[in-house]
C-alpha cells in the first residue's frame, strides 16, 4: 500500500492509515522478551575466542574499551579446566610460617578485600609469519578484568611469614598441579588471592574458585585453582620456570624468572581482517605495561617515518590495558600504521629488530614488538610480519 505520509510539521493528509505502515521495523510492533534472570548476548554477535586445546585467544579486534568480557578472557592451561566445588576447595599456606593455616573459600572472602582493574598476559603472547593474522592471532593471549580478592600480604600476616622466607610456591588444583616459585616480595607488594572477576565469581577458565593474581607479571605465575602456598628460602625450580617460561638471550644463555611483562601496544582497528574506507578513521588500540602506567602512545601513519601522540582514554591505570585513539584522515594511498607505547619507567616498545638484536637471533617468551599494519589502496588491512 502506497501511503501519503505526514511531514515533520504534520501537514500531509494520511487518514485511515495505521501507524504500523509508517513505522519501519518489526521490533516496534510486537512485545519483546520479558525481563529475565540472566541476560543474553545478541544472536547477531559472533565474537569468539580462537582455541587450541591448551589455549584460547581473545578477539582483541572485536573489543571496545578496556574490560574483557569474562567469557572471552583468554585461556591457557596445562591440563584443561578443572571442575571445582567451592564448598570443598581450600587453600593451605605453610612452610616458613609461624602458623600453617587452611582457608576455605568463605574464609578468604571474610578478610579485607581489594579490587583492581589490571591485565593478565601470557608471556608467550606473540605470533607472526603471515599477513593474514588478526590482533587475536598475534597477541590474543592478553585480557583485562576487574579482579577482587584478598591481598596476599594480609594472608602472609595471618600465617606469620618468617623473615627468612624469600620465595613461595603457588600450586594449582588442576590436573597439572601447576606450580610456580614467586619471590616473597611480590606477595608483600601487590599479589592478590582473587576470587572474583568483573563483579562475579571467577570463571572456571580463570581459576574458579580461587587464583593467584600477580599484577603486571607473566600470566603463568598467576596460578589458577590455587590450593597451596608454601613459603621457602629458595625457589623450587618447577618445570614451568625451567623447561618452560625461560627464554634465550645472547651467548647461548637463557633468562629465568623473567616475571615482568614489558610494555606493549597494538592497533586493534584498523587491523586484519577488517577493511576501511577513505576519509576519517579513528585508529584504536590498547597499550599496557607490567611495570606501571602507560605514559604515552605514539602512532605512525607513514610506516614509522613520523609519530604523533595518541589520546589515552582515562582512567589510565597501573598495569592495565589502556585504550588509545588517534583520529586520522586516510587519503587512500597505500601506507603502514604502527603504534608504540612508552611506560612510566621510560621503556619504549621496541621493534622486532631491536628485540632480536638485544636477545640474539631467536624468538621466545616476552616478545612485545611494535606491530605494523599495511593498508592497501582497496582498504584491506594486512599484518606486516618482519
Amino acid at each position: 500500500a502506497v501511503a501519503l505520509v505526514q511531514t515533520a510539521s504534520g501537514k500531509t493528509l494520511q487518514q485511515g492509515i495505521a501507524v504500523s505502515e509508517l513505522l519501519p521495523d518489526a521490533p516496534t510492533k510486537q512485545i519483546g522478551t520479558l525481563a529475565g534472570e540472566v541476560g543474553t548476548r545478541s544472536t547477531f554477535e559472533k565474537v569468539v575466542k580462537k582455541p587450541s586445546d591448551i589455549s584460547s585467544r581473545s578477539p582483541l579486534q572485536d573489543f571496545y574499551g578496556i574490560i574483557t568480557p569474562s567469557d572471552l578472557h583468554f585461556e591457557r592451561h596445562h591440563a584443561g579446566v578443572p571442575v571445582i566445588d567451592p564448598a570443598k576447595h581450600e587453600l593451605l599456606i605453610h612452610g616458613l610460617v609461624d602458623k600453617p593455616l587452611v582457608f576455605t573459600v568463605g574464609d578468604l572472602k571474610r578478610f579485607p578485600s581489594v579490587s583492581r582493574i589490571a591485565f593478565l598476559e601470557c608471556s608467550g603472547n606473540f605470533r607472526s609469519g603471515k599477513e593474514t593474522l588478526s590482533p587475536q592471532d598475534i597477541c590474543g593471549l592478553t585480557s583485562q578484568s576487574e579482579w577482587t580478592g584478598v591481598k596476599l600480604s594480609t594472608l602472609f600476616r595471618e600465617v606469620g611469614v618468617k623473615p627468612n622466607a624469600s620465595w613461595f610456591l603457588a600450586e594449582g588444583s588442576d590436573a597439572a598441579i601447576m606450580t610456580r616459585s614467586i619471590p616473597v616480595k611480590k606477595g608483600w607488594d601487590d599479589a592478590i588471592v582473587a576470587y572474583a572477576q568483573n563483579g562475579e565469581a571467577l570463571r572456571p577458565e580463570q581459576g574458579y574458585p580461587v587464583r593467584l593474581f600477580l599484577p603486571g607479571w607473566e600470566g603463568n605465575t598467576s596460578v589458577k585453582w590455587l590450593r597451596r602456598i608454601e613459603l621457602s628460602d629458595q625457589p623450587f625450580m618447577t618445570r614451568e620456570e625451567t623447561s618452560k617460561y625461560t627464554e634465550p638471550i645472547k651467548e647461548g644463555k637463557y633468562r629465568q624468572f623473567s616475571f615482568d611483562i614489558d610494555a606493549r601496544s597494538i592497533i586493534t582497528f584498523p587491523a586484519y581482517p577488517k577493511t576501511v574506507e577513505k576519509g576519517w578513521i579513528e585508529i584504536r588500540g590498547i597499550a599496557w605495561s607490567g611495570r606501571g602506567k602507560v605514559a604515552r602512545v605514539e602512532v605512525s601513519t607513514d610506516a614509522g617515518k613520523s609519530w604523533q601522540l595518541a589520546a589515552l582514554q582515562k582512567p589510565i591505570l597501573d598495569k592495565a590495558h589502556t585504550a588509545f585513539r588517534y583520529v586520522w584522515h586516510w587519503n587512500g594511498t597505500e601506507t603502514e600504521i604502527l603504534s608504540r607505547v612508552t611506560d612510566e619507567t621510560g621503556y619504549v616498545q621496541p621493534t622486532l629488530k631491536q628485540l632480536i638484536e638485544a636477545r640474539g637471533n631467536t624468538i621466545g617468551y616476552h616478545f612485545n614488538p611494535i606491530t605494523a599494519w599495511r593498508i592497501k589502496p582497496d582498504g584491506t588491512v594486512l599484518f606486516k610480519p618482519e
Partner: protein
Amino acid sequence: PVVITDTLPTRFGIGRLATAAEIARLDIDVRPDGKGLPAGQGNSTTGKQIFATKCAACHGTGGVGGPNGSLVTSTNPDRKRPEKTIGNYWPYATTVFDYIRRAMPFSQPGSLTNEEVYHLTAYLLQANGIIDEKAVINAQTLPRVVMPAQKLFVPDNRKGGPEIK
C-alpha cells in the same frame, strides 16, 4: 598523556542525508503545541465504542479499574490516594494522542489508525470530564485543551549541595 584534538574536523562526512519521506515515516511524535499531529479527527462517542472493544479489557469499563490501571478519574473509596489518571495527572492533552498511537493497545502496538487514535483521545478526555461529548478533536483543537493537572507540575529545583529537596 597528551591528547590530540587539533586534527579533529567539525564534520567527518559520515552518514547519509535523510530524505523528507524517510523522516516523515519515523517522525511520529506530537508536541504540546500540536506539531506532529496528523490530519483527521475524532469524537468521544466513536471513541467510547473503540475503547470498549480494544482497551477496556486492560483498562476497565469506562477506563476505570482493569488489570493495567485506570485512565479515567473516579472516586474509589477503597483506595487511600486517588489513582493517577489522565484526568488528574496528565499535564498535556497531546500526550494522550502521542502515547496511544505509539504504544497502545499494548499487545498490538502500531495497529491503530490516526482516526482511531483521535476518537480514543476524544473519548478519554471526555470521560475524564475535560471536554464535552460534542467536542471534535483534531490537530487544531487538541493542543488547545487545557489539562487540569498542568498547573501541578514544576521543574526540578534540586541542584546538589547540602540541601535535601
